[in-house]
């Protein structure tokens, strides 16, 4: 019953969709910050390993940093809400 109400009331539908998008965008920013912090730690570990001449640890650290970068690019360019159709929560496909 509530679903049909949401669908018939465009204002309600728009507000709920906006809230959904805001939540997704904020989650994306938080994830990006977390990945950046992890990369900062990886850079510190890389510098320490290089100065200590532990060369076996360098490649895995660089690969880990590269994966973090790929994750960041993915989050920025391709991470979007999975569905924009009408849903029970009033999400709208554009």
């Amino acid at each position, binding site marked *: 019953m509530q679903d049909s109400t949401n669908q018939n009331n465009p204002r309600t539908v728009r507000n709920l969709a906006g809230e959904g998008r805001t939540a997704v965008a904020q989650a994306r*920013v938080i994830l990006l910050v977390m990945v950046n912090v992890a990369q900062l730690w990886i850079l510190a570990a890389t510098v320490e390993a290089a100065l*200590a*001449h*532990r*060369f076996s640890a*360098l490649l895995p*650290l*660089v690969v880990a940093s590269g994966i973090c*970068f790929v994750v960041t690019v993915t989050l920025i360019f391709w991470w979007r809400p999975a569905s924009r159709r009408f849903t029970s929560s009033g999400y709208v496909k554009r």
Partner: protein
Amino acid sequence: MSRDLGETIKRVLADETDVRSATAPHQKDFPYDREEEAQVTRREFCNFLGLTSAALFVGAAGFAGKAALDARSTPQFRSSKIASAETLAPGSSLNFQYPTTKDSAILVRTLDGEFHAFGQKCTHLSCPVYFERLHQRLECPCHDGAFDPKTGNVLYGPPPRPLDPIKLEVRTNGEVWAIGREASTGEHSS
């Protein structure tokens, strides 16, 4: 005019739109300051995080690459006489520079009369180590680390690896020459 304004507002309110470029024409006609103009948009912040991520990746790759390249090249060291080393009393130390005048090193003559030399930089945070006569060990004053004066191995404290050893040669006339320097590797070893 009202149509343009309406389109501008629509573009500004649309999600994931570049607010600054959308409002640029309107700002040109009606310049005024808003507090919101000084704020960073979410898209700008995301782009900044993306650039930071790229910079951190490039930094890590560059640092690792340079370290790997430096490790492949074998530096050539010249022999250098350590002045007045032959008169050094057992159980004492002497500072010198090797392989360049910028590289501080320490020569230790242990109680059994043997010479040992190491780079003076602590492997923790590069503080200069000194020879502590009472306990016959090399100590770092910054974070309470200590090294064995014979092997350079870590005795205790935060240093992650031994001191960099300097190869010595005692010649027939008693002179002590530094002939090479190595980079120590490994974790705590005793």
